[in-house]
């Protein structure tokens, strides 16, 4: 579904992404692992168009590199940024409404679905985005992107800074997303969660993909883990 070939990206003069290639198939969960600062988030941003990509990005068989951000989103790529961009002056419900791309088509998720999965959000439906807890904000950001009915969702560090119970809720949500046939490209620091739910793993180092394989191949390869992931 998503094919990235020889992707490069720059911040000013620094060459952040240096020839990344990766694939995500329909309904597949793929994790992008690596230490902080190796370019995982920038890879996602280059796919969304926020950072200018150099290289080939195909989505559903069509090239999307160089297209406008909203067009890429409308083709079915959802993106959940790392910093939980809740719109602080909008309520929880309004944040969800904002995620809907078209009022005419009913996607596979409804606001009621979200409230059923996360009773916390339902209770706080009319509270401002700025006053809900960090965990609730994280749920809300993912739910908001789902309201746009993406076929692929890219999620950046969803469990960062969350309490263990919330981490469990987030991984439950990821499983539910996959169950409804949405592919996931996950950037995640917590190895156990990533390995638990993923089909395949990519490891990044210094702006390049240094390992690619199935979860069992990754588990069998201690060398990669030691060299590129452990601090």
């Amino acid at each position, binding site marked *: 579904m998503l094919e990235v070939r020889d992707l490069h990206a720059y911040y000013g003069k620094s060459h952040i992404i240096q020839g990344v290639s990766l694939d995500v198939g329909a309904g597949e969960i793929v994790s992008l692992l690596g230490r902080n600062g190796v370019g995982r988030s920038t890879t996602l941003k280059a796919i*969304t168009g*926020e950072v200018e990509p150099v290289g080939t990005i195909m989505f559903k068989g069509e090239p999307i590199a160089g297209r*406008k*951000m*909203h067009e890429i*989103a*409308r083709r079915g790529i*959802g*993106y959940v*940024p790392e910093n939980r*961009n809740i*719109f*602080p*002056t*909008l309520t929880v419900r*309004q944040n969800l*409404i*904002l*995620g*809907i*791309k078209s*009022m005419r088509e009913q996607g596979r998720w409804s606001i009621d679905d979200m409230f059923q999965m996360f009773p916390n959000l339902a209770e706080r439906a009319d509270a401002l985005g700025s006053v809900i807890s960090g965990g609730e904000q994280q749920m809300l950001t993912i739910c*908001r*992107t789902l309201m*746009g009915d993406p076929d692929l969702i890219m999620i950046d560090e969803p469990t960062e800074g969350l309490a263990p119970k919330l981490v469990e809720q987030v991984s439950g949500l990821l499983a539910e997303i996959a169950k409804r046939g949405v592919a996931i490209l996950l950037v995640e620091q917590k190895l156990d969660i990533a390995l638990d739910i993923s089909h395949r793993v990519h490891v990044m180092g210094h702006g390049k993909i240094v390992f690619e394989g199935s979860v069992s191949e990754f588990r069998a390869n201690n060398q990669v883990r030691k060299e590129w992931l452990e601090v």
Partner: protein
Amino acid sequence: MESFIFAMFNGVLYGMLLFLLASGLTLIFSMMGVLNFAHASFFMLGAYFAYQISEGLNFWAALIVAPVIVGMVGAGIERWGLRPVHRYGHVAELLFTFGVAYVIEELVQMIWGRVPVPYEIPDAMSGALFTWQGFDYSIYRVFMLVVSVAIFVALFALLTYTRIGLIIRAAVSDPIHVATLGHDIPRIFMWTFGFGCALAGVAGVVGGNVLGTEPAMAIQLGPIVFVVIVIGGLGSLGGALVAALIIGIVTRLAIFYDYGVGSLVLALGLEIDTAGMLRDFTRITTAQVAPVLPYLMLVLMLIFKPRGLFGTRDV
């Protein structure tokens, strides 16, 4: 007391007119980061278009059509002017709108001349609606107040209860993220810019015949509108309303109660030599001070509370 109420009425009226201008400017400023120096020029275009349309048709047609044309002109300038300039940063954008202000002024002078045009209050609305305690409350001024309050209510409802309003408010705080949700930010910018210009156009239609429709009207009102959005706080529509009312009321009261500084000091029970060294100082009247007051407030606000009354981010 009666005269106080009359002065307040005029102050609120002037304040609401300022709000019509400031609301569009603060939307554009907070959303696009563009300090639209030409904003008051769209106010002027509104007045001139209204004059032209009332000549051919009537005032009511002008009230609807003139703001629409002004909005289209604004959207066009954003689309084919400001958008290409955007990539060179905010300074280039500011200079661009600065140029637009002068181009509009020169065009207006070329078409309608340097002297004021006779854009008059419609006959049906000349005269007093009622007289209260010796003061005439004119039909037209009450009408102006009704129009501006109606627009405030409509604008508030649009931004609070509609989906497009939500998108605009979200784009104010984080346009990039709104784009990743699939909303076409450049198009929203274009229409917000056009809509803001149309609001200024409405102010021109209803205010041009009272304040005078002439090529200098944009330059006269432009700076004070910036004062309103800084005092109110960038991006805050409620703040723009409060600041516009404060400035409207303070300046009108100062003109209405035309006290000399000397008599004010005396009224406070202090002694002052009105013939000696401070003679010239004591002759200053509050009416003379009135035009400076908004700028004094601006300076103080920037020093002590740079986010304005209700703003969420620095200027």
